[in-house]
């Protein structure tokens, strides 16, 4: 009998744990940091998205339903949550203006293609009319054909791989036509970096690259950087690679130093970049460091001596401490929602996505009672013809393939702040 009693207690305890955690959840979300998307909608409110999904026709004043998915759990959760918070914020602001009304439903996809496809089904069940697609590239490439099949307009904040908007990403052919990007595509970043370095020979002439060869983002940028470097006549003296969660870069750095490299190009995210900077400093190796948008965030790495990042160049569309009013308000409001966290470029891209959608919807006079295909056609027409000013750039335009054109800003870190570098 004692065993039964023990088991009963265990079951009861775990049930209690689950219940109390769920209670915590609802408590904190009413505080505003991670509020469920549906509860913010002005008119549907408690009824949930599924109820009126079956019959979107009828009410022209109803909010237009925006779907989206991203990694809210798992190792890539920081990106998904940034997008979710920024998108919720933008939706609230757009709704408060009184014009076009949005309702957001954001699902977890764990940065996994299978989960993203499942999340797509959930969003469709929820009556999605326009979409933020997904936050990360690989899952996005899996759902883009679904968006095309169903003719639902999608613009991804940060799915930067060409395979997001092209059926054949490698050759960049077979554009889906209704899937757009808010961020730079990876190839643009690579060639943009090479062009900038070629125009500024004072940064260094012998280039070493360390990239993560199991990451499509890093490898995609490196491939185009190398190609563009070839046309620009740049000299790449060393190519080093790493994989997974590696944190020891002494071998690569020693090889780069031995090859006489005076410029280190790092098309990687900021966590390994911070380790590279620390280890290069320990070795007494001081090349010019050049990064891309993944480098954004290096000043916020815990335990990293930020003085080592002095003089680091990076190519990024968004700078959190820029002085313009738009960025200032955005950063302030975001911090208030995200427990003081400084927004990264994923958040800024998502914020721009919602505002671009609002601009397009207003211009095309889109209402919630239109069919997805009609909305899609109108949105594509707007996006390919309009100019949009946002956090991540001015005078952005999109071509028919869904690629954005905006000027990448080269920044240099001075006294712990981003400062625009020489054009």
């Amino acid at each position, binding site marked *: 009998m004692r*065993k039964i009693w023990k088991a009963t207690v*265990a079951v009861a305890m775990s049930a209690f744990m689950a219940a109390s955690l769920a209670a915590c*959840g609802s408590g904190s*979300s009413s505080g505003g940091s991670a509020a469920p998307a549906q509860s913010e909608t002005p008119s549907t409110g408690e009824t949930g998205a599924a109820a009126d999904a079956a019959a979107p026709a009828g009410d022209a004043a109803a909010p237009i339903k925006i779907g989206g998915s991203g990694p809210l759990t798992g190792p890539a959760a920081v990106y998904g949550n940034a997008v979710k918070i920024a998108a919720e914020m933008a939706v609230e602001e757009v709704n408060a203006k009184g014009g076009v009304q949005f309702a957001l439903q954001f699902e977890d996809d764990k940065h996994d*293609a299978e989960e993203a496809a*499942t999340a797509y*089904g959930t969003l469709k069940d929820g009556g999605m009319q326009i979409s933020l697609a997904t936050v990360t590239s690989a899952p996005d*490439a899996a759902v883009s*054909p679904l968006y095309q099949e169903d003719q639902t307009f999608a613009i991804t904040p940060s799915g930067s791989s060409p395979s997001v908007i092209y059926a054949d990403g490698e050759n960049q052919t077979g554009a889906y036509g209704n899937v757009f990007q808010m961020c730079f595509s990876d190839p643009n970043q690579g060639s943009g970096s090479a062009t900038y370095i070629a125009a500024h020979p004072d940064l260094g002439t012998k280039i070493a690259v360390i990239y993560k060869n199991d990451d499509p983002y890093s490898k995609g940028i490196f491939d185009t950087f190398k190609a563009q470097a070839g046309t620009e006549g740049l000299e790449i003296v060393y190519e080093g690679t790493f994989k997974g969660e590696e944190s020891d870069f002494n071998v690569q750095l020693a090889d780069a130093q031995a090859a006489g490299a005076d410029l280190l190009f790092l098309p990687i995210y900021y966590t390994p970049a911070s380790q590279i900077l620390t280890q290069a400093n320990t070795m007494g190796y001081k090349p010019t460091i050049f990064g891309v948008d993944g480098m954004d965030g290096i000043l916020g790495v815990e335990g990293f001596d930020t003085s080592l990042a002095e003089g680091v160049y990076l190519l990024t569309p968004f700078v959190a401490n820029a002085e313009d009013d738009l960025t200032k308000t955005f950063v302030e409001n975001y911090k208030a929602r995200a427990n003081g966290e400084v927004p990264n470029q994923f958040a800024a891209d998502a914020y721009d996505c919602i505002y671009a959608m609002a601009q397009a919807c207003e211009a095309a006079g889109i209402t919630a009672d239109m069919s997805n295909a009609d909305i899609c056609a109108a949105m594509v027409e707007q996006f390919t013809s309009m100019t949009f000013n946002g956090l991540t750039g001015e005078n952005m335009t999109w071509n028919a393939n869904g690629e954005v054109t905006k000027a990448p800003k080269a920044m240099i870190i001075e006294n712990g702040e981003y400062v625009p570098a020489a054009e």
Partner: protein
Amino acid sequence: MENKKGILGYLLNNRHRSRTISYTMVAAAYILLEILLKTGNLSNLFTGLLVPATCYLVAAIGLNLNVGVSGELNLGQAGFMAVGAFSGVCVSGVLAGTVPPVLRLILAIIIGMLLTAFVGFLIGIPVLKLQGDYLAIVTLAFGQIVMNLIMNLYVAFDSTGIKFSFVESKFTLGEGGKYLINGPMGATGTERIANFTAGTILVIFALVVVYNLIYSRSGRAIMAARDNRIAAESIGINIAKTKMMAFVISAALAGAAGALYGLNYSTMVASKFDYNTSILILVYVVLGGLGNFNGTLIATVILFLLPQLLRGLQDYRMLIYAVVLILIMLITNNEFLRTKAASLRKKKA
């Protein structure tokens, strides 16, 4: 039970009862879901889950043969799925345009299955001759090695043929050439030709193979080798051979499941088939009951759907999923409930 005559008696006698139940469950589920699908009463969420669910079912049935019936722990089922998935995608990509989709799907699954069986055979040769938990260690390593190899594999196809390399990531391709596997980006731009009917047929196929094996002479030998190695050897059973049979069939089913899975998504990265996926399939098998294929069917479906059904809980769904897993473990292992269930079964009989 044994006294009953006729077809019903045959189907329900002890030897055939479990397989009758299995086939009935799968057929009933298929008919029900197809009706819902055709009448448009199935939500988009569930429609998208049908094919992956059948993939996991097939992989779990295969794993149960290896872990439950043969008694060897296998921690690399996802690795075998990866082999089947990426070879299936390549086959489909090469034949695209010349072979109709249905035939292409069948060919992809068959080739994926055969290739995986061969890989399983190669691994089994040294390992299955050993005693102890060596298969667990080797399959664990195998899963990781396969994943890393595919991450560095580039396969492209054009009019001149197939090109593949572990070193060169850029091929000069002729007109209409395309990448089938693109290193860390995995398989991209795959034509989605998998469907629920094919998945269900594959599940039935897996069940037929497994049931016919375990009730055959070879199946008895496999179980004898599991229960008492020395006794089995003394009556002339070749232990390595019987274990190899279970292991290779298990791998082949995983390969077939992988091929179907790969052709259901337009993108697939190798990191999907990591250690976690192997463990996930093992959890389906263990919670369903070792050697119990009806249990595998039910546990796989429930545990596969659970995280999706919990989507309403927003941020807490993976936490609740873990708690539910622990609860299921506690409940199914509860002595009180087990004796109750056993006495109920006796009364019925």
